[in-house]
């Protein structure tokens, strides 16, 4: 469903959703969200771990 091509003739960018800028922006936001989520997760983990060892 995400393919951007219907034929291999004169194909250029062929990755999923290559012809859908909205989807590509959403994927980028997803990447940013996962990185931010990782740091948030680690901050929470540190807080709990530090409290546990007070």
């Amino acid at each position: 469903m995400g393919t951007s091509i219907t034929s291999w003739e004169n194909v250029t960018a062929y990755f999923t959703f290559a012809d859908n800028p909205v989807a590509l922006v959403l994927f980028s936001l997803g990447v940013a969200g996962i990185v931010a989520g990782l740091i948030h997760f680690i901050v929470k983990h540190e807080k709990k771990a530090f409290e546990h060892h007070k």
Partner: protein
Amino acid sequence: MTTELPYLESLQATLNAQQAAFEMHQAMNIEVFYWWCTAIMVMIHAGFLAYEMGASRSKNALAAGVKNILALAVIIPTFYLFGWWIYNAFPTGIIPVDASAALPWAQSMGPDVKDMGTGIFWAAFALFGATTGSILSGAVIERIRVSAFLMLTIVLGSGIWILAGAWGWHPDGWMLTEFGYHDVGASGVVHAIAGFFTLGVLINLGPRVGKFINGVPQKIQAHNLPMTLIGLMMIIFGFFGFLGGCIIFNGGETGWTTIYNTPTNLSAFAFNTLMGFAGGVIGCYMATRDPFWTMSGGLVGIISVAAGLDLYDPGLAFMIATGVSFIAVGAAKQLEKLGIDDAVGAVSVHGVTGVIAVILVGVFASGTPNMDGNPAISLYGQALCAFVMALLGFASGYLVSYVLKKFDLLRVPANVEDFGLDEVEVLAHPYPENVPAKNTHSTNAITKGA
């Protein structure tokens, strides 16, 4: 005549087909070259991993390693999101130019049959960025919060160094177009930036507990010096990928050029990389007779000649590396006297050496012409740009770490530092046979809590 024309047309068609096949294979060779440079660069990170874990005390060994692994994992996606765009958008200074093709939603930022360059160059540059993160990582071991380190490493590895790269490496970079800046092996844009960023962070982070007693520096022993030495040698191996990634493999008749489009080849890089390595090892051994510094000398040596890797006589490269090693060791001692606890000497090995390396190109290769109408190499231009690199790195590292410190997010609490980060944060032990069985319970409790 009637039979010759079809024959010539057929010959032309054959030639065209051969030309197309040749160009495709040339483009594929370019991709293959940078693919393997990137793969070899991963060894830099394997080396930093071993080096930092070995340099830590055993109570912090895994925390140092996890921090380093995560650095690679956050720099790659953030470099995809904005690092590559920064390189293409800021060559002229701090006002961005149009670089929409480098945004993460551009078609060239994904599998594209017609684009055999963007992905492979992005990958090499992402690994350069990850190297800056690893340079920071070693210096701050045993007391920085992982979360703070990751925020700092994103700023450095996907932001600051590549801004310097845009200024000093991009064909339109203002350092090149205004001052003829020459730094083919990234002594300035990677090592000086990362080293001085690290200094800014270290000032706010402070020394490890026990490093200074009544102001007198103490030696905190690495728990596994052999692992550290092997890690350093792995970094040297990775440098061949790093420096290979710094040369431009051109299509057509041009052949190899530097990133400044001046002629060079891998032979030039080979002579001076190896002579720099050897000179650095000898210099640091003579200056310290310390195993850690002897091996670090290999890094000092290569970094000291990397900026002029294409220009130096190998004998000169050897002497530069030997001489700069004494300066790097002296700088490390001075920093320690000033109360800076740089656990692995990153500020002097990368920062001080990187700055000196850039300036030395101006000393020894001043007047060497550039291409495309850019000014010739000059001592003034090299010195000015080296100063800008150091300032950019230091100011950004100091400011971001200062903000983190103000929010109490920079450093682990003193009791945690005393306890050991592995026990508190990592949920695993590097050498479990030395840990009493009762500790397993507390580890599980945190796992559930997390």
